[in-house]
């Protein structure tokens, strides 16, 4: 039963992606990207990753849509029809896609318990986590305790991105009738 849901959600993702490619009204593209994130959050739930589904739906559907719409109000709603030839990008994409799909035939089948991704460190985390950390949510234990340094670096990256946005956008925007040379810059 979950296979059917899997196949259906992935097919819907493909349709949404193609619609995003063809649509030129940017407002529609952004709403479709929210739908795309919601479908992938559903996919994460069927693939047994509720934490990731939670985060993807909160971030991808909520925050990303709001930020894109806020930027869209400042930037403009329509995309101009493309002028340059699209044959070369298509050739590059088809070539790369072909090579990757050929490489994907070597990946162990979906759901295999003997996957190399499930060996080495992961059985140790799963088995020794009740004695060493004692937290029911294994993802939280790995995130905050076993891989705490990575989480600290990631928090610093988010902070750096916030500082970057503030540097770019915090100066007051010069109005059209003020004289040149008065731009408050950061």
């Amino acid at each position, binding site marked *: 039963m979950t296979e059917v849901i899997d196949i259906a959600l992935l097919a819907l993702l493909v349709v949404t992606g193609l619609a995003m490619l063809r649509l030129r009204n940017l407002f529609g593209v952004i709403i479709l990207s929210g739908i795309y994130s919601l479908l992938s959050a559903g996919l994460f739930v069927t693939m047994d990753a509720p934490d990731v589904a939670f985060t993807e739906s909160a971030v991808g559907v909520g925050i990303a849509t709001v*930020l894109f719409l806020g930027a869209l*109000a400042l930037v403009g709603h329509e995309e101009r029809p493309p002028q340059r030839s699209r044959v070369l990008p298509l050739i590059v994409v088809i070539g790369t896609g072909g090579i990757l799909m050929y490489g994907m035939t070597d990946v162990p089948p979906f759901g295999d318990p003997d996957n190399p991704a499930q060996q080495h460190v992961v059985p140790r985390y799963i088995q020794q986590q009740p004695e060493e950390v*004692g937290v029911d*949510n294994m993802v*939280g234990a790995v995130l905050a305790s076993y891989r705490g340094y990575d989480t600290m670096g990631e928090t610093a990256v988010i902070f750096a991105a916030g500082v970057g946005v*503030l540097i*770019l956008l915090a100066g007051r925007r010069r*109005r059209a009738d003020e004289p040149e040379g008065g731009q408050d810059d950061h």
Partner: protein
Amino acid sequence: MTTNVILRIATKVLIPNILIFGLYVHFHGDYGPGGGFQAGVIVGAGFILYALVYGLENTTRVLPPTVVHICMAAGVLIFAGTGVVSLLLGGAYLEYNVLAHDAIHGQHRGILWVELGVIATVFGTMVSIFYAVAGRKGMD
């Protein structure tokens, strides 16, 4: 501020529940799905919803941008500070076992503090970015 009555009343009912749900996700991140990132985004989304319905000026009166910027930096400090505290208590950097009388309790306490730091940074960043983008004057 939007004049649509339904939106305003619904927002007044929803926002306290959103903020409490964010806190719930943080504290129950040990026992179910959840944790710092989800909670930070949920709390940030609550404030962004308030800004969308009630206007940016009301929101900056409730939550001044200076507070949000400080929150953004304080999160990283809390996270790194937890590591320093465990250094001072005799363990390694970010070793939670030494934070309480017992290893398991120490782990719980360390994880709660660390996730609090993550919440502060994520919340601060999301709301600061929203303030910066939404407060920008348009070209016309």
